[in-house]
């Protein structure tokens, strides 16, 4: 075999020939890259990774749009390669609560454009899967396009495609033992068969990825974990079947198990056992592994309850003494702290990419998306939730990864509420206000490791004060992770004033002689403004869709302070870093942990602030969208007059150690004015939705452009910026969808219970048909929440232009029922205070 060292420098080295690495090399070649090298430490075609023992089935419907898009793209590729066998699949429910969840699956399918799914009665399930005992279930969710794939064969086909183009060299039994980094960039890969120069390395090493990334000084935060699977047979029901699979795959959701035909046998897998985590260091070598490095000995005691559960559902097969357990493994796969893949260039090392924690069902879609991202700077499918740059350092620790992975494991088939909070490893990042908030009975939700009050129990009195103006939620689902106190705090803010803990903001300064050019290049809106101005701006991808939205304060000629949401902050930081001028004329400093932010908003905000300062905070002297340093009592505070809740007020920034003092000052000064502490429930939902403010990751993503989002205010600035050409093109054509605000006309369900949408529900025509725009995108609720001041439940949704008409009557599907809604605004005009008088008062 040729030595690696004899090759010319590679355009990219892909490490790992599992489903991901194989897919990736083919797509890189497709996009015109050559001199690609694929390495694996194991033999081909099955080098011993997780791909080799996957059950290989694919269910397309997921609540996450991103995951669904990746899966649908993967299914398309598997079908085209002729390695997909459609079997259909049924998620069965044993409980009423699960049946509700299956209604939500129906809604997600409709929202993401997956047709043909339907709910089944137990008898209908029995008809499709004659060997199950329908008496233990209450229904099922049928996806006819579910199927299995031959992932090893697909991998071979993908490699061969790239090889046929003359673009790829493949080296099996070649282990990467080092990755050299020069000036923060990948330069060379060292292997057991020599070295190779390259500027791009993609780690597709599945459960080994953390080890390989570490060779370059980067982190891929995942943990190897066990997923148990057994194979039983021969199954008499399969005697006359000729294919590998002719019966639908069954997911027994409530027991966290699945049963799928495999020729004459039945594979039974489980996510029900205790989380069994391993360390990547602990995986055996190919030589020392008894079976494969990712097949650990079966631990029978973890599967006992599962046998009982499976026997209960399919007694006809499993109760048969002639059907034996032929094979049983503890298979190893990757778990991550938030359950999502780890994709993209690592923030630590330029040119070092991660494509890890990916399942067979997403492998080819991820391969294509990563190839596009590498070659073109962005992928067609928005990978924002999977972006490896999303983590803060504290979220990469071994203990954090293990704690969250362990907690998430048993939720693999779980009924997970959209606002569900993690239990493990909390109280990691505490704001300087934390002790005060605890005293005030704050109920904390976590974002990016920060504990943020979502509402305060100490505001209970407000419930009496506002009485009927606060809609109570009758159904358990919408009351989960929610409190009427959110609406009460909202009303108190609109009437008086409220204090918000915004410490979770991600803050970074761009400085230096090249700072203006640097921020101008990234921001869509003009930043050549006078110092003291604040600009809220979209940040665009090359194709003119949303990469982020954030605010920038110009603090000086050569200093810009970027403030962005905590959840996406680290990815924004990387995006800005990646676009710094090459000549070193601008620098970035991450100040997230240097400053705390206290929000003060409401009609009384100025009264409160002026009682603490002799500086002029009048509207004339301190207008909207400006910032300056003022003195509050003994503190020097950067006050920034903007608002995400549509009120007069300020974000107040001080060094983090002075935060407690700032809180006390504002609190004491605010009491005579009736200030209340208010949580993120107001800041992120009710306050913002009444103002129809868009949120990144909800309304704003790579699927929609600025014009569709109704944010193309003013003219296009002269200097070049990322996405400009595309943005100009978008302005020249009519939008294919329009972001609208809708209000719910009637909340009553068939049984009379009032129901409140939470987001992601499909929007339908009055006759119940999905709305589809000319780019084949379905209309769905991007955000939903109460509007206590307008007394209505508010929904945001992109609608096809012909439906985006004020007064248009539509339906929204929620929990299997349809609710009437009406379009309230068809642009960014808000449903509360449409003239924006309050923020400018």
């Amino acid at each position: 075999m040729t030595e690696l060292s004899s090759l010319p420098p590679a355009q990219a080295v892909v490490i790992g020939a599992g489903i991901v690495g194989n897919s990736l090399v083919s797509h890189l070649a497709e996009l015109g890259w050559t001199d690609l090298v694929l390495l694996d430490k194991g033999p081909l075609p099955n080098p011993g990774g997780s791909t080799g023992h996957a059950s290989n089935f694919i269910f397309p419907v997921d609540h996450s749009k991103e995951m669904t898009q990746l899966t649908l793209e993967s299914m398309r590729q598997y079908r085209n390669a002729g390695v997909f066998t459609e079997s259909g699949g049924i998620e069965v429910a044993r409980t009423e609560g699960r049946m509700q969840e299956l209604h939500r699956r129906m809604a997600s399918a409709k929202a993401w454009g997956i047709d043909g799914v339907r709910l089944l009665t137990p008898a209908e399930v029995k008809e499709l899967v004659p060997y199950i005992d329908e008496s233990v279930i209450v229904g099922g969710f049928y996806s006819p396009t579910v199927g299995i794939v031959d992932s090893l064969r697909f991998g071979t086909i993908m490699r061969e495609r790239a090889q046929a183009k003359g673009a790829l060299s493949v080296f099996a039994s070649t282990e990467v033992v080092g990755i050299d980094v020069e000036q923060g960039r990948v330069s060379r890969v060292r292997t057991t068969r020599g070295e190779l120069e390259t500027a791009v390395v993609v780690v597709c090493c599945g459960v080994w990825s953390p080890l390989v990334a570490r060779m370059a000084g980067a982190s891929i935060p995942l943990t190897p974990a066990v997923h148990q699977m057994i194979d039983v047979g021969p199954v008499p029901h399969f005697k006359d079947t000729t294919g590998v699979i002719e019966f639908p795959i069954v997911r027994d959701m409530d027991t966290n198990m699945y049963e799928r035909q495999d020729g004459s046998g039945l594979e039974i897998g489980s996510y029900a056992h205790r989380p069994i985590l391993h360390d990547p260091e602990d995986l055996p070598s190919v030589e020392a592994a008894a079976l494969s490095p990712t097949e650990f000995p079966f631990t029978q005691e973890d599967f006992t309850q599962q046998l009982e559960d499976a026997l209960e559902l399919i007694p006809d097969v499993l109760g048969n003494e002639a059907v034996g357990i032929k094979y049983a493994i503890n298979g190893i796969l990757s778990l991550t702290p938030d359950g999502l893949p780890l994709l993209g260039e690592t923030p630590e090392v330029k040119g070092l990419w991660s494509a890890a924690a990916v399942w067979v069902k997403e492998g080819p879609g991820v391969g294509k998306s990563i190839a596009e991202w590498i070659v073109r700077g962005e992928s067609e499918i928005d990978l924002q939730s999977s972006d490896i740059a999303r983590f803060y350092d504290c979220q990469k620790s071994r203990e954090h990864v293990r704690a969250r992975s362990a907690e998430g494991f048993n939720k693999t088939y779980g009924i997970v509420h959209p606002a569900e909070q993690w239990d493990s490893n909390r109280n990691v990042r505490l704001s300087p206000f934390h002790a005060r908030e605890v005293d005030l009975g704050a109920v904390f939700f976590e974002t990016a490791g920060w504990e943020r009050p979502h509402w305060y129990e100490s505001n209970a009195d407000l419930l009496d004060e506002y009485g009927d103006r606060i809609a109570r939620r009758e159904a358990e689902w919408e009351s989960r992770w929610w409190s009427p106190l959110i609406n009460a705090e909202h009303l108190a803010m609109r009437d008086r004033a409220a204090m918000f803990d915004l410490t979770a903001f991600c803050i970074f300064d761009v400085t230096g002689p090249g700072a203006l050019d640097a921020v101008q290049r990234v921001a869509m809106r003009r930043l050549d403004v006078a110092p003291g101005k604040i600009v809220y701006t979209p940040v665009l991808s090359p194709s003119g869709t949303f990469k982020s939205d954030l605010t920038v304060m110009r603090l000086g000629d050569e200093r810009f302070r970027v403030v962005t949401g905590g959840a996406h902050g680290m990815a924004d930081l990387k995006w800005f870093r990646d676009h710094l001028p090459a000549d070193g004329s601008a620098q970035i400093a991450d100040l997230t942990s240097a400053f705390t932010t206290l929000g003060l908003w409401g009609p009384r905000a100025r009264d409160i602030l002026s009682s603490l300062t002799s500086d002029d905070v009048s509207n004339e002297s301190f207008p909207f969208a400006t910032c300056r340093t003022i003195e509050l009592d003994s503190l020097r505070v950067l006050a920034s007059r903007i608002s995400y809740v549509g009120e007069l007020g300020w974000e107040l920034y001080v060094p983090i150690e002075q935060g407690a003092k700032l809180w006390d000052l504002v609190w004491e000064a605010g009491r005579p004015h009736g200030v209340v502490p208010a949580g993120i429930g107001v800041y992120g939902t009710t306050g913002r939705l009444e103002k129809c403010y868009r949120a990144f990751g909800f309304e704003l993503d790579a699927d929609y452009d600025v014009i569709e989002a109704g944010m193309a205010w003013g003219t296009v600035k002269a200097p070049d910026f990322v996405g400009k050409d595309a943005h100009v093109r978008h302005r020249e054509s009519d939008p294919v969808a329009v972001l609208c605000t809708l209000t719910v006309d009637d909340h009553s369900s068939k049984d009379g219970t009032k129901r409140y949408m939470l987001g992601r529900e499909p929007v339908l025509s009055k006759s119940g048909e999905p709305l589809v725009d000319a780019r084949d995108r379905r209309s769905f609720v991007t955000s939903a929440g109460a509007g206590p001041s307008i007394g209505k439940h508010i929904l945001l949704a992109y609608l096809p232009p012909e439906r985006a008409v004020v007064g248009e009557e539509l339906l929204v599907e929620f929990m299997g029922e349809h609710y009437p809604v009406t379009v309230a605004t068809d642009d960014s005009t808000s449903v509360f205070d449409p003239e924006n008088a309050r923020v400018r008062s």
Partner: protein
Amino acid sequence: MRILVAVKRVPITGGRIVLTDDGQAIQTRHLGFTISPHEECGVEEAVRIVEAQGGEVVVLTLGPAEAEEQLRECMAIGADRGIHLVSDEEWDAQATAAALVEAIRAEAPFDLIVFGNESADAGNYQVGIRVAYALGLPIVTGLKGLVVSDGRARAEQETASGRDVYEVGLPAIVTVKEGLNLPRYPSVPAKLRANRKPVAAQAVGRPPSRLQKLRLVVPAGRGKQAEILGRGPEAAPAVVEIMRRLGVA
């Protein structure tokens, strides 16, 4: 019929064997455990005899607490109960035989006592014979065929030229080899039943060993090797030839 089968917990090896740093044991961190294929056949044979003729199959092991797993595997195949002599120490063949003899005496009488021909790890080829000697029972070793009826056993050994056939009156001891039968896969109900079957566990102390282990050495092997027999249809004759050699075609 009362039949006792002696089984031993051994690691499942497949890849390169890795020793512990002190060379005293093999590294089992990544290894599963099982009983040898010989013993599996022994259990299967005993269960078949009792299924046909009635009676009881008892499985006996000397080993660490975890060896209960192996007793349960045997009970999932159909054994009725287990006897577990619990010890964490390593026993040589002589001491093992002595401990087994004592346990067998306490449970006697048995019509048939079954051993594997040799254990999968130590391969001492002697525990069964020592037990037979101590109990004063006849023994036939290395069996690939066994028929039990009317108080007698017909026992067949495979030889290079054919089979040697013995007849022995019961009670007797046999040591058996893989190929005696094709053991069944346990069914799900059998697995679940096995969890409820009784295991009598009792700690045993190891007598001073007369054998001293210096250290283990892994013989230089060829490691895992894959031979490509050909591609596409041309590979078929080579595959058939291998199947012939393995006796499956």
